[in-house]
């Protein structure tokens, strides 16, 4: 496993100099994301997210297991992020890098701990059977901004996923396959999304959606997760330099605007996909979903 190629001194100086002059290498504004491209697979629960050259695929799968003994009424939800050498030769299977640990932790805090998914709805028979949901995050191409892309991918995949319906008779539960009955969407309570700010020059300059070169030059990062209603789920700061509280406040405002944009894009893509699947216009009749 070779180490990640470090950015050269010249490149570093060049990027920093350009930032001083309010220019980013790819010509974007400081608070502009690369265009978000989102597509869904043929199956339920597969989302393919692209931010420029960064590409992440999230995939949701479901299984039936016994719930944890201390959480009898809850289903199990797990997010798995494992980097493969596909994204960069520096990633080795089975030996997580710092970036991987941070990504896993942020996703855990943002999506799982903020209760984005109602795990109680995954319970089939209390203490005996529940759905175990897992979200696999595959990093296909790496050009910075992995956290934001992964978060969008997982949230979009969760909203796209449909779980099989069940019939419970006493202690007996029957899982109905997709052919037997139209599967049910998950109950999602809110949609948290992450926005990463990279800061330079002791917190003087903030960049949104840094690419890999900018990530290697930055002093630190602030990751803000919030939903489209402006409720902050978590704030994390990595890296040495200090930042001003007011600057942080400003970041949350920018984040809110970005999160709203992403939510709108995800919603639009989901509707397009639903329309594509609803070819005969029978979906409303087939649906076994109960209104919350």
């Amino acid at each position, binding site marked *: *496993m*070779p180490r990640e190629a470090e950015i050269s001194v010249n490149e570093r100086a060049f990027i920093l100099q350009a930032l001083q002059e309010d220019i980013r290498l790819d010509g974007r504004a400081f608070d502009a994301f690369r265009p978000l491209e989102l597509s869904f*697979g*043929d*199956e339920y629960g*597969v989302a393919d997210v692209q931010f420029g*050259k960064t*590409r992440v*695929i999230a*995939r949701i*799968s*479901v*299984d*039936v297991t016994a719930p944890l003994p201390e959480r009898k009424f809850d289903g199990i939800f797990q997010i*798995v992020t*494992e980097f*493969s*050498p*596909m*994204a*960069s*030769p520096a990633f080795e*299977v089975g030996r997580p890098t710092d970036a991987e640990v941070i990504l896993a932790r942020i996703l855990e805090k943002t999506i799982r701990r903020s209760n984005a998914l109602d795990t109680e709805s995954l319970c089939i028979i209390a203490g005996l059977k529940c759905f175990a949901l*897992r979200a*696999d995050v*595959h990093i*296909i*191409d*790496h*050009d910075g901004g992995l956290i934001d892309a992964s978060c969008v991918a997982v949230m979009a995949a969760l909203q796209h996923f449909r779980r099989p319906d069940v019939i419970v008779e006493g202690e007996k539960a029957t*899982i109905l*396959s*997709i052919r037997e009955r139209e599967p049910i969407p998950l109950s999602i309570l809110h949609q948290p999304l992450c926005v990463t700010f990279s800061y330079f020059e002791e917190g003087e300059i903030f960049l949104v959606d840094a690419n890999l070169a900018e990530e290697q030059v930055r002093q630190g990062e602030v990751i803000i997760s919030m939903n489209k209603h402006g409720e902050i789920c978590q704030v994390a700061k990595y890296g040495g330099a200090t930042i001003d509280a007011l600057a942080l406040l400003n970041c949350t405002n920018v984040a809110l605007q970005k999160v709203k944009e992403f939510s709108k894009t995800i919603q639009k893509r989901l509707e397009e996909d639903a329309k594509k699947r609803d070819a005969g216009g029978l979906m409303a009749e087939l649906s076994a979903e109960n209104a919350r």
Partner: protein
Amino acid sequence: MAPLPTADLTTLHRADGSATYTHLSHTIIGSVNGPIEVQRRDELPSSATLEVNIRPAGGVGTPRERHLETLVHDTLRSVVLVEKIPRTLVQVTLQVRSLPEEESGGADSSTTASSLTLLPHLLHTSLLALLSASIPLRTTLTSTVVAIPRDGQGMLVSPTANELLRRRPMRSIHVFAFDGEGKLLLNESEGEFGVEEWDEACEMAEEVCCKGDGGVGLGEGMDVDGEGQAQSLEAWLRGVVGRKVEVEQRWRVAT
């Protein structure tokens, strides 16, 4: 016969070479990094080290993936000119992106007939990715699955997951891979079978992989829905790479 696979070369930006391959609702993304620096403990003094990583669509790798990795690794070792690039590493990563509906039912994975059905797809993807990364190769390879149903009638050549599910259980499943000269590179079989059956299966696979365009008719007793004389996999491979080269060489032709 099943339709030919579709493939795109160099679909990723970061990796040295990559390919996206789709066949019978299997989609696999393959990437190759190499030749790169090798870790001291893996370094071979007279040849390159090959590393194959197979990542399933859902979940982390299981012994099934490890087994497939070994098979792909051993096959690729005889395809890559490892002696030309000693003391280096060639990293092959194969990410399964989607599986046919019949095989992806997470909970009841018993429907998965055999891990072997994935193998030809993995081999094709890795070869295309290696070509895209310009790793020196000795030869190309083509591969296919032959399944023999319980009654022994009507062997299935590269069957769809649905066909396998419906004719279940299969008596035996064979995977064959041939090099550019039509020599057998890999033979992996599962189940009960006799020598004659194996011979017949091998011949069929050879026809699908290597012949075809030479005007050699398909043998009798093979139940194919007459789609006319299809292209062989060998010709398909040539076509995929040829198209890519054409696109890349546009600038030369235009002037």
